[in-house]
């Protein structure tokens, strides 16, 4: 990477975290360009989820820097990072099971996020229209009044993606969005992702290679917390070190 760092929307340098001496992420550099869709792959326990945790502030880094536009994320609180424009989907679908699909989306609507703002929040036409619009995109427009707990696994994944979309983040981070989905659901999700990655940067963690092929601009391979290989999917597939790691696993 020899381009000017300011060209990137996200610049991760020397990122390190150690859990009681075990370095789950070790001196990682990562540069994400605007409108890029980066896929991170790697064997189980490689530290992929931890990288996302560090970027969004869920885990505190031991060292390094994470710059998003012109902000240092490592110094910010989780909710401030969200408001700066970073959205995060978890590996296991996290939706509010006791609330309806509508209410799930409404909570993520980027208004009334303070205590008193939430008290005064009104469900006006703009809110309703936006929620309906998002629900259509995530194939849930018929289930708005359904409790989220009653959705199928795949629908929960979509709902969580919808909850991020409604925030309109500039950087979207998705942890295994198609895990546990049927083939048909996978196809629909790929189509959904291809649509929503158009005007933002996306980091996706995924194991499914055909899915990666569908969406990736570039691929980063992580192994034992370190960057193993980076480039186009064809490039990393041809890298003998990558083959070794995956075969050895």
């Amino acid at each position, binding site marked *: 990477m020899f381009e000017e760092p300011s060209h990137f929307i996200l610049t991760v340098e020397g990122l390190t975290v150690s859990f009681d001496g075990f370095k789950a992420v070790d001196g990682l550099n990562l540069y994400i360009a605007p409108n890029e869709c980066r896929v991170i792959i790697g064997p189980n326990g490689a530290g992929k989820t931890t990288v996302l945790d560090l970027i*969004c502030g*869920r885990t505190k880094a031991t060292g390094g820097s994470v710059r998003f536009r012109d902000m240092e994320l490592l110094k910010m*609180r*989780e*909710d401030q990072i*969200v*408001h700066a424009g970073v*959205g*995060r989907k*978890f590996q296991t679908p*996290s*939706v*509010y*099971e*006791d*609330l309806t699909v509508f*209410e*799930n989306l*409404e*909570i*993520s609507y*980027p208004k*009334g*996020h*303070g*205590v008193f703002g*939430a*008290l*005064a*929040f009104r469900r006006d036409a703009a809110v309703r229209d936006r929620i309906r619009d998002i629900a259509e995109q995530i194939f849930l427009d018929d289930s708005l009044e359904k409790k989220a707990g009653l959705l199928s696994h795949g629908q929960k994944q979509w709902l*969580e993606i919808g*909850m991020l979309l409604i*925030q309109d983040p500039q950087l979207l981070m998705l942890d295994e969005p198609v895990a546990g989905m049927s083939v048909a659901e996978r196809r629909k999700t790929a189509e959904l992702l291809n649509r929503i990655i158009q005007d933002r940067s996306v980091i996706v963690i995924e194991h499914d290679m055909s899915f990666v092929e569908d969406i990736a601009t570039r691929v980063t391979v992580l192994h034992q917390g370190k960057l193993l290989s980076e480039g186009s999917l064809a490039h990393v597939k041809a890298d003998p070190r990558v083959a070794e790691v995956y075969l050895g696993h």
Partner: protein
Amino acid sequence: MRLSFSASDPGLRRQIIGLALLAALLLVALPLGLDAFRLNLFGKYLCFAFVAIGLVLCWGMGGILSLGQGVFFGLGGYAMAMYLKLEASTPEATKIQSTPGIPDFMDWNQLKALPLWWEPFHSLPFTLIAIIALPVAFAFIIGTAMFRRRVGGVYFAIITQAIAAIATILIIGQQGYTGGVNGITDLRTLHGWDIRPDSARVTLYFVCAGLLLLAAVLALFVQRSKLGRILIAMRDQEDRVRFSGYDVAAFKTFVFCLGAVFASVGGAMFTLQVGFMSPTIVGIVPSIEMVIFCAVGGRLSVIGAVYGALLVNLARTSFSESFPELWLFGLGALFIAVVMAFPSGLAGVWVERIEPLLARLLRRKTTTPADPNAPEAPEPAPLTRDAAGRRPGAATLNALSTNPLPATPMTDAAARAAL
């Protein structure tokens, strides 16, 4: 809120009917059916309903189990008691003391002057502000310290319980400043108005009932707002809420402060109606009892919490008159029974069993759509009958108490329920 909205929202309709029935019970049925003595007793029960409403927001919705609400009840109660005590301790009324003009218990403890921090409680406006501001400040400090450090669940419950224990020890230990284990007694007038005669007690009952209805309306407003839904979301998926851009600690602190204010107002009304305040209402056992009122009523239902507080207290009065030593066992058994058999309490029974039954009966009897006055409240009737002395509540509790359980599982179960 527009009215057109209400027609399409069964939840709101149910809440309005529930509020109206509660208001009818508290403001009409009870005052008509009870003598001044019994009415005053119910006024005392209502004070605990304030706490239960606060716990619905904190615990039922937000998942924050506080086992120290007695502390906030005590803050309001003691603030009010200090004001009343100072008013009762005029130099003329206390001229036989070695230092006239200070509260009697201070004189007994050889204090020579009023402590500085008692001085502002000469003023009624200051006292009224303190009843709101003290619990807010205290809850804010505890809340910020705990929630920013991500202390939650059982740990939070245990810490609040420890705070309740510390508060009791402090009050009892600092006898000269607090009245010690006897509390602050012999209270007489509020701004010159004698609070002891029956007529005053009836007035105070109405003030208490009015404030309680106000608190219920406020709590329902919070419950229905987006903040209410965020509380539920936080309880189930705290991280998802955090990464949807909310400062989770701020929301928890807010609802904890709100619960503290409700408890404090209840405490102040308690002092006024009972005529004293003592550390026995601040400690661990009363704090746990308050959680039980809320659980019995239904921890997600504001209105249910009021009935829970009324019924359990009524049962306590009836039951502990006859078998004082068994009351705690009975209460523990009741709590376990409710948690196991009716996790959403009285409110759950009402919504799941009684409402459908009423609806079916109504549909059979009339062809016209349901008239809002038609569903008769089941609660008012038994309550007034209880008060007349027949005590049906005691019978159920008697049955429960034949199977005595150790008192400790109560705390255990309370802590587990928080998870």
